[in-house]
């Protein structure tokens, strides 16, 4: 039976190759994901280990909870350095500072790539602490006004040693001389992150932190155990204020934090890979079903000469296993190549993520191999079972058909039930009180049930949809379209599984489109109704801006009012609470609050330093009413209690709670603003006023980006589109696999219909008409998948946006996208049918006269 399986594969190489692609693509994505994320993880391990080289113990302020935004810990008073130096066994201790800074060359700010941070770091006097940034040109900065930058940044900014440049930090622009260029670690790879190194004294000045440091690096005397040193230092520094770690511990902790983020990336990519494999298994199921139907005579003949059912089943399953293993292995190899290509692209473009050298862990091979093989095996079980039910007498009969699967008649109804259960699960997921992760699992499982259920019920939809899309085609293209429609509907089970594969991809594309469109529409609506500002100013990389920018904006004559929205990371009752700190005097002219419970703008004036107005759902979640109080804990440990003065609704912009800038000072020593809102004086032309504001701000804050409200909307639109296109690109793989399914199905169908097509050619059908007929069939099949996918996407999008109503996300149909999806579906059908159509057109009338 093994030989029979091998012979079957060899006899139909094209079919085998196309079917293999269905699995190759998914497994390639899976192994590529592993290799790539392993490379990134490796790079970060290396970066953090490198950064702490020569450092035995590292001291920083304790953060009360994990920062969501990677906020630096609060500064430490420099006097602590002397205290640490006095500890027994300490050889050297030095304060270091970290902040944000970017180069400004000829008035132009050189940003990092891909939203990566632009960091300001300090060089130490103690050479051991500088070992992670060895100079490749020049030397380390040692005097005021001297800086050095990392090699990649220097290359991009086109600066060389000795050049005069400016450095932009939260306090403004600072002239400096580039005295050195260094390389970080062995690979020098930091992704898009840029490093600018200065002396501690300059950093204190430029970050406006006089007498402060962010971390203290400690080196022990030769032979001193870092752990011992750590415990000695820990004794003199209060534990709730200071975090004392060995260099290795610190590297591990930071790497773990980053790796959690990469783990999320890995999970996301793996989900898309699994979707691709699911689509691939539909294709494989279909191909095996069709080829078994075509091999009825051969299989029946084997039965007549004594092959047992078990032997036949084994033969089909062996064929599937060979396919699964071979395709998965090829896919894994492709995945490794793909990851290598991406690494090359990252290195070339300096984009976003650092990568270490290639490593292929055992699970990178084992998991995709198992998933790919098992998926192929499962897809072949039903066809294999049906093969065993072919009676021996079929060998002798003309036109014998494959016995129907026993479950087949019930499948659509099982599908409908599954869909309904799926809808119920999604609803439960959104309304239950369970933990977020279990609710997400319920919703995800429900969504999967909906998609699979509709896939099973697809058979019922083939005829109506084929009729609906066939009618206009027939009206325009006549007979070839009419026959194409009949061909598409003659085996509804087959067309259904072909269309289902495409439906999954299209459904997810539409779902994502609806979801993101909902976010966009709601956000735009919120911007229009809540914001009265003319301009919205944010820092590049969304890093916080110094308070000084508000005064700078107010100094512009065209500006009537300006307000910074201050922020710091806080928690209430142990869960993250978004905070907005406003200036009550300016707020009413810049922001519209949608007051509840009879509140009004007058409340803002009563806030003082311990009052808060809170968002409706924040109030509901914590059972807060006007007059009640809540305690806030800031990331650096400050605690403050606020009294609720009023409640408003704004699920998009001012979520959580709103306090005054004075209130914010109770929560952080270094208040900064996340966003600057400005309004121009009446009569000032928007273009002119915005230009004036931009000139005034960028002179001292070159990284600040001034955008008018409509520019800000465009900006958000672009950001969301990038997100959308990345997801589309990930789903494109599934769509491509389903189109390969359409190609194979059509090729096999043409092979089956050789005699029919030959007859049609004999009685006067032109090659062009045959070609058109197959192209129409491709379009009809794809449109069935596309249209059902569209409705699945709308259903999922509707359910999810409905469930997120309290988050302010509205359901809104992205009509343009839907039309584009349908048009692309038609093109996809034409592309998929191209090769089969060419093949069919080559058939000769003579083929009609030849038996089989």
């Amino acid at each position: 039976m093994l030989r029979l399986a091998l012979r079957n594969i060899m006899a139909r190489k094209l079919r085998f190759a196309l079917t293999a692609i269905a699995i190759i693509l998914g497994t390639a994505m899976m192994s590529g994901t592993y290799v790539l994320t392993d490379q990134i993880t490796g790079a970060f391990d290396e970066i953090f280990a490198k950064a702490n080289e020569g450092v035995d113990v590292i001291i920083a302020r304790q953060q009360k909870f994990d920062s969501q935004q990677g906020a630096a810990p609060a500064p430490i008073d420099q006097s602590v350095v002397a205290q640490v130096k006095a500890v027994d066994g300490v050889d050297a201790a030095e304060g270091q500072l970290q902040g944000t800074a970017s180069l400004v060359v000829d008035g132009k700010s050189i940003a990092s790539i891909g939203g990566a941070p632009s960091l300001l770091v300090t060089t130490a006097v103690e050479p051991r602490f500088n070992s992670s940034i060895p100079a490749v040109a020049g030397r380390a900065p040692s005097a005021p006004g001297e800086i050095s930058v990392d090699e990649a940044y220097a290359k991009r900014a086109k600066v060389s040693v000795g050049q005069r440049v400016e450095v932009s930090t939260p306090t403004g622009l600072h002239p400096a001389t580039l005295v050195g260029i260094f390389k970080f670690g062995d690979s020098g790879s930091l992704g898009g992150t840029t490093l600018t190194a200065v002396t501690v004294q300059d950093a204190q000045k430029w970050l406006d932190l006089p007498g402060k440091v962010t971390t203290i690096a400690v080196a022990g005397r030769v032979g001193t155990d870092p752990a011992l040193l750590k415990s000695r230092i820990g004794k003199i520094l209060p534990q709730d204020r200071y975090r004392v770690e060995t260099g290795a511990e610190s590297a591990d902790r930071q790497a773990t934090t980053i790796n959690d983020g990469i783990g999320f990336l890995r999970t996301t990519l793996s989900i898309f890979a699994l979707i691709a494999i699911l689509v691939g298994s539909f294709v494989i199921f279909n191909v095996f079903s069709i080829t078994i139907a075509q091999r009825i005579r051969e299989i029946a003949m084997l039965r007549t000469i004594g092959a047992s059912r078990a032997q036949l089943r084994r033969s089909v399953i062996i064929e599937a296993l060979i396919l699964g293993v071979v395709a998965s292995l090829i896919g894994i190899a492709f995945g490794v190549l793909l990851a290598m290509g991406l690494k090359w692209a990252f290195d070339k473009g300096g984009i976003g993520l650092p990568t270490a050298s290639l490593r292929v862990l055992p699970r990178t091979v084992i998991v995709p191999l198992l998933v790919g093989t098992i998926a192929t095996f499962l897809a072949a079980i039903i066809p294999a079972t049906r093969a065993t039910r072919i009676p021996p007498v079929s060998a002798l009969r003309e036109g014998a058909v494959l016995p129907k699967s026993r479950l087949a008649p019930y499948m659509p109804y099982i599908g409908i039930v599954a869909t309904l259960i799926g809808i119920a699960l999604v609803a439960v997921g959104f309304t239950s009180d369970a933990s977020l992760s279990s609710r997400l699992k319920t919703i995800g499982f429900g969504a999967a049930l909906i998609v699979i259920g509709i896939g099973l019920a697809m058979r019922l939809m083939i005829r109506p949809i084929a009729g609906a899309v066939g009618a206009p085609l027939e009206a325009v293209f006549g007979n070839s379209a009419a026959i194409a429609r009949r061909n598409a509907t003659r085996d509804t089970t087959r067309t259904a599984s072909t269309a289902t594969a495409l439906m999954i991809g299209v459904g997810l594309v539409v779902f994502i489109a609806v979801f993101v469109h909902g976010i966009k529409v709601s956000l735009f609506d919120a911007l229009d109704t809540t914001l009265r500002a003319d301009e919205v100013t944010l820092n590049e990389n969304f890093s916080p801006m110094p308070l000084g920018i508000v005064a700078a904006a107010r100094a512009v004559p065209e500006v009537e009012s300006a307000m910074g929205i201050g922020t710091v990371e806080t928690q209430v009752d142990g869960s993250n609470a978004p905070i907005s700190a406003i200036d009550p005097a300016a707020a009413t002219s810049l922001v519209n609050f949608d007051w509840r419970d009879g509140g009004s703008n007058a409340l803002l004036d009563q806030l003082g330093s311990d009052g808060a107005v809170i968002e409706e759902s924040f109030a509901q979640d914590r059972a807060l009413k006007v007059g009640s109080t809540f305690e806030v804990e800031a990331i650096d440990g400050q605690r403050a209690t606020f009294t609720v003065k009023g409640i408003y609704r704004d699920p998009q912009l001012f979520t959580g709670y709103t306090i005054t800038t004075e209130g914010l000072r109770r929560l952080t020593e270094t208040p900064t603003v996340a966003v600057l809102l400005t309004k121009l004086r009446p009569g000032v032309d928007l273009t002119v006023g915005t230009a004036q504001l931009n000139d005034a701000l960028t002179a001292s804050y070159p990284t600040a980006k001034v955008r008018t409200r409509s520019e800000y909307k465009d900006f958000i639109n672009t950001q969301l589109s990038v997100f959308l296109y990345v997801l589309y690109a990930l789903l494109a793989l599934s769509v491509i696999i389903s189109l390969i399914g359409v190609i194979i199905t059509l090729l096999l169908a043409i092979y089956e219909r050789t005699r029919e097509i030959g007859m049609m050619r004999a009685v006067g059908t032109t090659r062009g008409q045959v070609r058109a007929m197959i192209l129409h069939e491709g379009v009809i099949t794809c449109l069935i998948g596309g249209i059902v996918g569209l409705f699945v996407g709308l259903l999922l999008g509707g359910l999810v946006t409905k469930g997120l109503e309290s988050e302010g996300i509205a359901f809104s149909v992205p009509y343009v996208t839907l039309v584009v999806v349908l048009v692309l579906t038609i093109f996809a059908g034409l592309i998929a049918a191209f090769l089969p159509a060419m093949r069919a057109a080559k058939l000769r009338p003579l083929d009609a006269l030849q038996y089989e």
Partner: protein
Amino acid sequence: MSTAEALPPSPPSTAVVSARGIIRRFGEGDTAVEALRGVDLDLERGSFIAIMGPSGSGKSTLMHILAGIDTPTAGTVWVNGTEITAIKDKALTLFRRTNVGFVFQFFNLLPMLTAAENLDLPLSIAGSKPDAEWRRHLVDVVGLGDRLSHRPSELSGGQQQRVAIARALINRPAVVFADEPTGNLDSKNGTEILNLLRQSVDEFGQTIVMVTHDPKAAAIADQVMFLQDGHIVRVEQHMDGDAIFDVMKTLE
């Protein structure tokens, strides 16, 4: 080479199908096989011609070439006044549409179309409307009135072949080619099909060329042509089955 030879000979005026010097070679070089080695023929309009011969005699190849679905290696074929060996595939296809009808051994109906739709197929391919009266008459003659809305899978072999014959006649082609039309039927249904073909010659003046190896089937023809090794070895008018059988025995 003289100019006279370069010009194709003109077709005999009364023949609906004429062939001159047909050679059909399959393959190249040493392995080449000559299926037809120089066939000349003229078929009269309104006649029923049977082409007979043992396996490998070239009878099917000859029919394919006369019907314009295979191209001779050398030689000229005229059908209904058109030199089909001189026209390209597209023109030939359009020519077949209106001038040639086919009846196949395995019926070759489209399974997803009803009997009526199969019957109208040549017209709908051509984008033309059926002549309602002719169609009604045809349906009547082939006796399918109550079966028109059925799918081929719901029809017996004999009924399917009746649909196929009606399909071949629907656009009143100059000539109908039938390839072993009874080869896949039992003798009762086979006889009915032969009678139907005979009737279409007698009543409608249809020209029919039928390839068969069944002497009884050939006996219904006006003229029987015997092929052997790629040559027409004998042409007889109105032979009975036994006589044909005797000739066939000498050929094998």
